């Protein structure tokens, strides 16, 4: 009898604990979604409706706001989105391909200085891009590459974090016997990499492509220092411009729509691929 009581007591305790845990989780989810929910709702309201204050219910002006934002004279958001798309896609492709190539070079071959090369890449991994921004801007100005996408795209070839992820992935999935077998079959080294190694690396490449696309799409610091031609500006620069504009004169419905458009491509990608993205988060962290 006593035993049974203990059991029910234990179960009760566990259920209370479980209730608290779910409450915490739901509260955190609410916190994460609340501001974005307000953004979407407010993007459906006209300026006059927004002036009346807070509401949780959508109104009917979504398409008006979309048309107004899309056709705005000072902030050319469709152009900005196209620009960001070009930069982010090219960066994602270059970063993943060359990081895999670099990782393969170090993983599959023995050569003098290999350890040094690896050590170097690992050592510079945590240095933030801001601390070389000054010299970077100077060099780009000298080469007349400001107002050009090359300085935003090409540096992606040297991405230590992506390299490290690729290297770790290769260590777990790529047997070198396979490379040897390809050699015996007469496959050239580049050919082996492109036709045998890359397909094996597909999951890693997909994950890193998403991450590099997102970080390039969101990148604000360096592009803002290099791009001042209106037709070249990327989305984050336009958002910052929106903040600096004379705020009181703005149609607020349009402002919410701008913000929504700025994050929409990433949001859609995330909704479609959240599972593999979350799996890739642990990229490059220490193994326990």
């Amino acid at each position, binding site marked *: 009898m006593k035993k049974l009581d203990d059991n029910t007591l234990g179960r009760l305790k566990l259920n209370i604990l479980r209730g608290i*845990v779910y409450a915490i989780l739901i509260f955190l989810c609410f*916190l994460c979604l609340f501001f974005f929910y307000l953004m979407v709702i407010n993007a459906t309201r006209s300026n006059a409706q927004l002036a009346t204050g807070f509401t949780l219910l959508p109104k009917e002006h979504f398409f008006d706001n979309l048309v107004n934002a899309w056709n705005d004279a000072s902030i050319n958001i469709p152009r900005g989105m196209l620009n960001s798309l070009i930069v982010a896609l090219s960066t994602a492709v270059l970063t993943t391909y060359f990081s895999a190539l670099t990782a393969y070079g170090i993983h599959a071959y*023995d050569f003098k200085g290999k350890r040094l090369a690896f050590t170097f890449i690992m*050592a510079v991994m945590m240095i*933030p891009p801001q601390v*070389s921004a000054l010299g*970077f801007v100077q060099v780009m100005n000298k080469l007349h590459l400001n107002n050009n996408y090359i300085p935003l795209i090409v540096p992606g070839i040297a991405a230590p974090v992506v390299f490290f992820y690729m290297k770790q992935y290769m260590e777990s999935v790529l047997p*070198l016997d396979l490379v040897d077998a390809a050699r015996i079959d007469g496959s050239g080294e580049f050919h082996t990499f492109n036709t045998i190694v890359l397909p094996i690396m597909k999951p890693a490449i997909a994950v890193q492509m998403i991450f590099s696309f997102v970080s390039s799409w969101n990148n604000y*610091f360096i592009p803002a220092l290099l791009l001042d031609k209106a037709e070249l500006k990327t989305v984050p620069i336009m958002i910052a411009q929106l*903040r600096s504009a004379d705020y009181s004169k703005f149609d607020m419905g349009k402002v919410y729509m701008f913000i929504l458009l700025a994050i929409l491509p990433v949001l859609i990608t995330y909704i479609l691929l959240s599972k593999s993205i979350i799996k890739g988060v642990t990229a490059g962290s220490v193994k326990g």
Partner: protein
Amino acid sequence: MNERTALQNAKRKTVSYAKWGYIFILPFFVVYLCFTLIPQFLTIYNSFFENYRDGLTQIGPNFVGLENYKALFTADSAGTVRILKYLANTMIMWFVGALPQFVIAMLLAIFFTSYRLNIKGQGFFKTVIYMPNLIMAAAFSMLFFTLFSRVGPIQMLLTKWGWIDASFDFFSHRVTVRGMIALMNFLMWFGNTTIVLMAGIMGIDQALFESATLDGANATQVFFRVTLPLLMPIFVYCLITALIGGIQMFDVPQVLTKGNGAPDELSRTLVMYLNGYLTTKNYGMAGAISVIIFIITGVLGGFVYRMLTAQYRDPGRQHRQRKGDVL
């Protein structure tokens, strides 16, 4: 004899393939040299020169030795050493966001991995809490500005409820501005930390938990005596990378305060300070600030480097690798 030629052949083979290793890693190093290493040296070089614009006149570049650094650490007329003030701002805002970030991430990681609790809907919860991490920081910050502005819905709601006065301005008080920045940083990062810590807990050998339980340890003891010590390396790794990220804090406060770090520059961060000199083309001062940030992140990065490469320093593993039997 036969065996020996085979061995020699094998050796020759390795040697003849070496050049491909160089070819494959060449693009990385060329690009790194041009776009990061040379700019890095140029930045350091600039920090020793006086080089700025005074109205329409260009001053310098003239070599001034350590004068820029001296200027950085000299108090202005109001008696503040600005770089230290901005460093303090950065660290305070980072800490206020990072403290709940780590506490909650740790709790969630324990909840999610507990067999006893057996939390349902983990996929959904993880998807939601990780989402803010991918959102453009500039846009998130702009959203906060619009929502909390004098004419924004949150201001109006709180006024209606009588929680704040109608004249209250979220952007003119130190506590609210810093609070908003910390809240955004918290929201953007706690999901990420949760997932990394979870992976860390799941990477711990299950047998250890089982034997601890068999030896009579309760849940609390198992956590403090088994989970926590084994999780320490990953926890410290997360903490240091978060700190390095915190030092780089820029997009959120820059957009939120229009770059002025209002009120009274109390939300101005180190990188905003750097960005200010970069946009006004005061390259001497910008160089000196860059070097300071470089040193701070370099020291912190050193710890991360040691942790990430620990597995490669283990001689046993090296040996296996060299033999190429990775699987």
